[in-house]
């Protein structure tokens, strides 16, 4: 690992803006974080519900192929031929039980086995197809949510998730039996950390919509889980009552069962944000493109037990409420851009709300505290090897 010169402020509530903009820091983040000891969600099994379904995804530039075989088993592969490394599958999603590399016609099944390659008599003596399956990264899943890690040393997925497991399981419908509704995909002109630092956490001051819609925030808790500083929110759902400016109030209607903890957010280090709000179930697969750009795939889901009306309600609510064009989130997207521009100035970003003592870290927060992000920043600092300044 390369030592990167950046002195971290002594106060726990300050983050140097240079961490968001320096190319050398970005390159080191690739090594220490994205190829380091973290688990990265790349898909939910319900995105590929049928035998032969597949999805491709690039995790920090690494091409992945996630495929369900004829027997229903889902596996993650590197999306590159085991021969010369040619990108194997070009479609974003589809259904195939075999994948053929067009370069030399090597053919793989959805278990990753090499099942055919022409002219192998011309290959090295002793060539054996069974020595050339598709390579695989380590992967594991939690209620259908598939995680990949690019390091052999990473702890188990269960350890990685720690106390975020309950919130995440409930967010995934309680049992992970989801049904895909579709995607909204977007690139933000923002460093990946500006995105994750501001996506899960929502300052209600930002949301003019809440006021106009006569919508009060529900009571809730926020806590940090594991040394990674994953952030979990659990809040009572507040439902709009009284007059609203909307002519179609179904956009903000709640038709689900349990409003007492109707709103959940789980933000896992480094880039994953997921939310269940009203009847929207949304998993955001985010990956850095470069130090100035992050790409986010918002995937939306219904539950397999939903009746037709509920699926339609979720579809109509999901499309218009929480994504890059959504009623109460479009301005978040704008904030990612503006924070990133602002980070090209000297000094530190300073957290205030919920900070009681700047020389200490806490792990329980009020719902609207911005201090909930600080355990994650402390973990980031330690992984990156940045020394904290002396008092």
């Amino acid at each position: 690992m390369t030592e990167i010169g950046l002195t971290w402020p002594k106060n726990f509530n300050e983050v140097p803006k240079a961490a968001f903009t320096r190319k050398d820091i970005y390159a080191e983040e690739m090594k220490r974080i994205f190829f380091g000891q973290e688990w990265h969600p790349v898909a939910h099994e319900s995105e590929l519900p049928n035998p032969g379904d597949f999805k491709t995804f690039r995790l920090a530039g690494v091409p992945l192929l996630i495929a369900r075989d004829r027997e229903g088993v889902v596996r993650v592969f590197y999306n590159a031929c085991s021969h010369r490394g040619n990108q194997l599958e070009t479609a974003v999603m589809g259904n195939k039980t075999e994948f053929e590399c067009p370069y030399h016609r090597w053919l793989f099944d959805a278990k990753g086995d090499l099942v055919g390659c022409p002219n192998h008599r011309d290959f090295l003596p002793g060539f054996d197809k069974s020595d050339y399956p598709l390579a695989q990264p380590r992967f594991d899943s939690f209620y259908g949510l598939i995680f990949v890690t690019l390091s052999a040393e990473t702890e188990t997925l269960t350890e990685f998730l720690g106390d975020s497991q309950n919130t995440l399981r409930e967010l995934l419908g309680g049992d992970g039996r989801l049904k895909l509704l579709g995607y909204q995909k977007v690139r933000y002109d923002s460093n990946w950390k500006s995105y994750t630092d501001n996506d899960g956490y929502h300052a209600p001051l930002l949301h003019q919509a809440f006021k106009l819609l006569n919508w009060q925030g529900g009571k809730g808790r926020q806590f940090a889980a594991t040394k990674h500083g994953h952030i979990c929110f659990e809040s009572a759902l507040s439902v709009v009552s009284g007059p609203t400016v909307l002519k179609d109030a179904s956009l903000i209607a709640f038709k689900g069962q349990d409003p007492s903890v109707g709103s959940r957010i789980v933000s896992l280090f480094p880039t994953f944000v997921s939310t269940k709000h009203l009847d929207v179930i949304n998993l955001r697969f985010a990956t850095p493109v470069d130090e100035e750009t992050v790409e986010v795939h918002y995937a939306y889901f219904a539950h397999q037990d939903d009746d037709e009306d509920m699926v339609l309600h979720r579809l109509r609510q999901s499309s218009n409420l929480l994504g890059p064009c959504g009623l109460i989130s479009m301005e978040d997207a704008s904030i990612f851009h503006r924070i990133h521009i602002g980070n090209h100035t000297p000094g530190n970003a300073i957290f205030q709300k919920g900070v009681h003592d700047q020389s200490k870290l806490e792990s329980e927060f009020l719902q609207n505290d911005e201090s909930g992000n600080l355990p994650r920043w402390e973990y980031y600092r330690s992984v990156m090897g940045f020394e904290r300044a002396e008092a």
Partner: protein
Amino acid sequence: MTQTDTALEAALDALLLADSSALDGKDMEGWLANYAEEDEASYICRSAENSENGLALGFMYDDCRSRLEDRVTFVNDIWVGTFQDYRTRHFVQRVAYQRVDASTISMRSNFSVFMTPTDSGITQVLAAGQYLDTIRLEKAGALKLLSRRAELDTSVLPRYLVYPI
């Protein structure tokens, strides 16, 4: 082969251009005025990738007249002052049309939309794709959009959307 109806084609093009002009002028009331008054009037903006994979979710899913009216409220009232504004220029071209019945026409058009954020001043392509329209021939002879699906080839947007495409 449909016999060329130059008066009808001119009217279809006028509707296409009226929508582009309203959007580029950020005139949301004018945008709404291009849609039929019927309850089922709709505007859906969705990636072709979703459509081709049987996924109905959109970037914008305004499947009834009241949602079209709410879209005007989003832009004119709710979002004011919360985003970096951008100019758009829509380039549209009718590709094909077909009479469905005496009062309905279907039309397919190409679009490309340039975007210029006011802060950076750098122009880039916001989206390209096709409009799949159902058009109502009203009694007075006016043409209105009964349904429009903006189907985006651009499956990964380069920015959040404030205005419809």
